[in-house]
């Protein structure tokens, strides 16, 4: 019940395309759903996060869509660029408890 399942494992998209990364969870007590972006040789960095009381959140070219009834959420990257090539992790937590991470998606944007 504490797992966060992330797919796909890897994704290749042409520049300008819209990569979509999906995550699913079981524990309905989760109330915070962040996405982290990690470049090679660096630690993960918080990209965007959402609470379950909203269905969508946008920050620049990054959008989280949240479906509470399906217990799923996804990350969309609009007008993707080669600089967006990175590993993306979805995650979930309950209040200030430890964050549970998905296994990650390696995204490659072709120039």
């Amino acid at each position, binding site marked *: 019940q504490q797992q966060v399942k992330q797919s796909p494992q890897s994704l290749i998209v042409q520049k300008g395309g819209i990569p979509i990364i999906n995550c699913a969870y079981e524990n309905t007590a989760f109330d915070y759903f962040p996405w982290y972006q990690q470049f090679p040789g660096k630690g993960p960095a918080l990209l965007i996060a959402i609470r379950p009381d909203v269905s969508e959140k946008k920050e620049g070219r990054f959008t989280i869509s949240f479906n509470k009834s399906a217990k799923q959420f996804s990350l969309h990257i609009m007008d993707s660029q080669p600089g967006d090539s990175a590993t993306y992790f979805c995650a979930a937590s309950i209040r200030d408890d430890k964050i549970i*991470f998905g296994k990650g998606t390696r995204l490659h944007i072709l120039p």
Partner: protein
Amino acid sequence: DAGITQSPRHKVTETGTPVTLRCHQTENHRYMYWYRQDPGHGLRLIHYSYGVKDTDKGEVSDGYSVSRSKTEDFLLTLESATSSQTSVYFCAITPGGYGYTFGSGTRLTVV
């Protein structure tokens, strides 16, 4: 990363030797975490701390111990390193609430 430093950045050690990794923060945050990152497994929690001398186990704590004698330092010790502990280790901090700040990681190789 601002406010959080991991040392060493790289280490090669022999099987059976003790190893200590250090996480140092200048943010005076209460919460500190140690994760390991392995291909196909994402980020897995090893140990965490909610304050000085207040630590607890995560999902992959076997073979690891931690200590936190000062707010700013969180030490991870491999009592007797094994090849299965070859990994990239990340420290994370948060003031509580939501959102982690990660360090740049320590790449540990056990030969």
